[in-house]
């Protein structure tokens, strides 16, 4: 049995390698917001209120491009709707928590945190305080994201653009899924999702980000049926 503190620390350690991509990306996000002409306080407010990586950039780009606030808000909602899927997976491990705790934990659920905590949960189902791992990944992400976007806002894009550090984001997610390439069914699901995302990339409100997972999950359901 791990203690709460051990689980929290383990969560911090499990997500920290991803900061290699998250921190430069956060700096870029902060700097872009200011470059697009938004007030620094507003750009920072997003990191606190939305706390949602790419959706923050999309939001500002849409507004500065003349889109209505309704379109910008809807796009953020659709981009982040993938959290519904993360929540559905995590709910199994968090069901014993009180409603209030669930409300607090929900705020820190992010892509990388979900991925790393879910991997840990699958291996340690019997642990009593599992949620501390999720709090560890989420809080680490939160602190780093606040510091990174804030430094981008204050110092401007001191990360040279030529380095193309946005490319670190797909790489971080490759690191998350790469071990599942050993399983054929997962490979099929991944390819379905990836190709769908390219096919539907121009769909309105960036909806490819939720359309392609839904298609991929249907394929997963079909594969499960074939396996039987």
């Amino acid at each position, binding site marked *: 049995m791990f203690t709460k503190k051990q689980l929290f620390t383990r969560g911090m350690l499990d997500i920290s*390698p991803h900061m290699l991509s998250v921190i430069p990306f956060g700096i870029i996000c902060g700097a872009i917001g200011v470059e697009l002409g938004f007030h620094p306080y507003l750009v920072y407010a997003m990191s606190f209120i939305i706390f949602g990586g790419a959706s923050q950039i999309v939001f500002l780009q849409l507004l500065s491009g003349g889109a209505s606030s309704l379109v910008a808000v809807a796009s953020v909602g659709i981009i*982040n709707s993938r959290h519904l899927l993360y929540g559905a997976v995590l*709910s*199994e491990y968090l069901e014993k928590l009180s409603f209030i705790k669930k409300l607090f934990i929900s705020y820190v659920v992010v892509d990388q945190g979900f991925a790393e905590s879910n991997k840990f949960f699958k291996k340690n189902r019997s642990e009593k305080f599992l949620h501390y791992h999720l709090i560890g990944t989420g809080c680490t992400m939160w602190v780093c994201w606040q510091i990174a976007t804030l430094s981008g806002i204050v110092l401007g894009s001191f990360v040279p653009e030529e380095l193309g550090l946005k490319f670190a984001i797909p790489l971080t997610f490759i*690191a998350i899924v790469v071990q599942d390439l050993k399983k054929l069914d997962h490979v099929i699901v991944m390819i379905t999702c990836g190709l769908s995302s390219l096919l539907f*990339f121009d769909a309105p409100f960036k909806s490819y980000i939720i359309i392609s*997972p839904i298609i991929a999950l249907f394929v997963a359901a079909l594969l499960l049926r074939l396996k039987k």
Partner: protein
Amino acid sequence: MTLTSIIFAGILTYLTRMTMIALISRDMLGDKIKAVLEYVPSAVFPAIIFPGIFINDFGTFIEMNDPKIFGALVAVIVGYFSKNIIATISAGLVSYWFLIFVVFN
């Protein structure tokens, strides 16, 4: 005005995070759905990976000889064998930089 939109976007984002965790109980999801949910990471993350590699900042497809494709392949190979996140990201970035700064320069 913008702040109001940010608050609405924030509430919406929070709802996407909270709904399934706080409002759905385990019994509401059947075994079949749970089995499908096992695939969520494989079904979601490629939608971030593929466009990040194959679509450029202007929303168009990259050329087939784009350094990003090479960088991503190196990351996949290094990641598969090393099982190390930092090695995966660094290998992808370094091979990408090698192509854009050394080979194509």
